[in-house]
């Protein structure tokens, strides 16, 4: 799923069936390549930022229609080690450049694979470099297990160009194939 789809999703308690908050922002650790938690808004007419946050460890399930948690007790004060780290800065808007010096596009969203963790496995890219090419104005690039990223740019192996997809169907396979190819070439 794309990270942008998660914004606004309700947080629902399993013990009371209440919607106690909604996602304001998704927080990542790009060093670790995974989602670490969510900042939250209140629900309903009084919507506004909540001081408490939801860490990934407090999530029961991240689904297409909600995020379920055991109870409201899992909403906690933000841990600055997790929620204020420099590497959690937003990479959306950063340029994606191959290690051979070709710009592939600009990051417009992150693609997640969700199981025990919510791992960042790819980026949605757009911008002039994508729009000048054939097909959709959005493309999806798989990421290596480890890569260099800053707030301004992401450097990926040039071989990724063979695994870029126009949509997310079959994208998991592209991620696996790309990473296997990287392993074989090392």
């Amino acid at each position: 799923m794309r990270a942008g789809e998660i914004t606004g999703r309700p947080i629902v308690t399993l013990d009371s069936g209440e919607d106690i908050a909604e996602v304001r922002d998704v927080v990542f650790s790009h060093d670790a390549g995974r989602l670490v938690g969510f900042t939250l808004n209140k629900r309903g007419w009084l919507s506004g930022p909540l001081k408490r946050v939801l860490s990934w460890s407090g999530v029961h399930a991240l689904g297409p229609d909600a995020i379920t948690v055991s109870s409201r007790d899992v909403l906690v004060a933000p841990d600055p080690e997790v929620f204020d780290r420099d590497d959690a800065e937003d990479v959306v808007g950063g340029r994606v450049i191959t290690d051979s010096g070709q710009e592939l596009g600009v990051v417009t969203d992150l693609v997640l694979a969700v199981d025990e963790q919510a791992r960042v496995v790819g980026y949605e890219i757009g911008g002039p470099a994508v729009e000048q090419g054939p097909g959709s104005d959005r493309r999806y690039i798989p990421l290596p297990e480890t890569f260099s990223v800053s707030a301004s740019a992401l450097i990926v192996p040039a071989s990724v160009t063979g695994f870029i997809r126009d949509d997310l169907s079959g994208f998991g396979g592209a991620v696996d194939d790309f990473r296997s190819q990287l392993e074989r070439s090392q």
Partner: protein
Amino acid sequence: MTLRFAGAENTPVYSRASADEIGRVIRYVVAAPTRSVVALHVGGRRSRAALVDWEHVVGFGPDAVVIDSEDHLRHPDGDYEQRVASGDLDLRGRRVLTDTAYEIGPLVDAEFDETTGEVVMLETDRTTVRGAGLMTIGPYAIIVRHDAVQPADDPAAD
């Protein structure tokens, strides 16, 4: 035998002690932890809306519900029963969400065992859920275990 919530609503409620009709079934108090109907909400001609615990239901048939005595009608007790009695937690039409955060449609109806009150099946507008999977009845959603949801029919298999 099982009955459906919708079909049993508005069934007249009689007192075995007096043979009087004391009202009609208007809602069900379902305890999610035990997955069962634990009380009926009776509204009616001679009584203000009140609850009667399932243990005082003598018989629950297609034409009438018989309770042992109108003396066992009681007021809602606690926040959950108050919300049920006020209609804030009406089951039918309420969103059904799996614990894995998939919406599976609004609740259309449910079936319960007429002798034990056990909820045996929940029905949404697109699938059914085994009653044993009922986890929580809340203001936002009825929560069910994902593994209790019946697999949807595959239209491509037709």
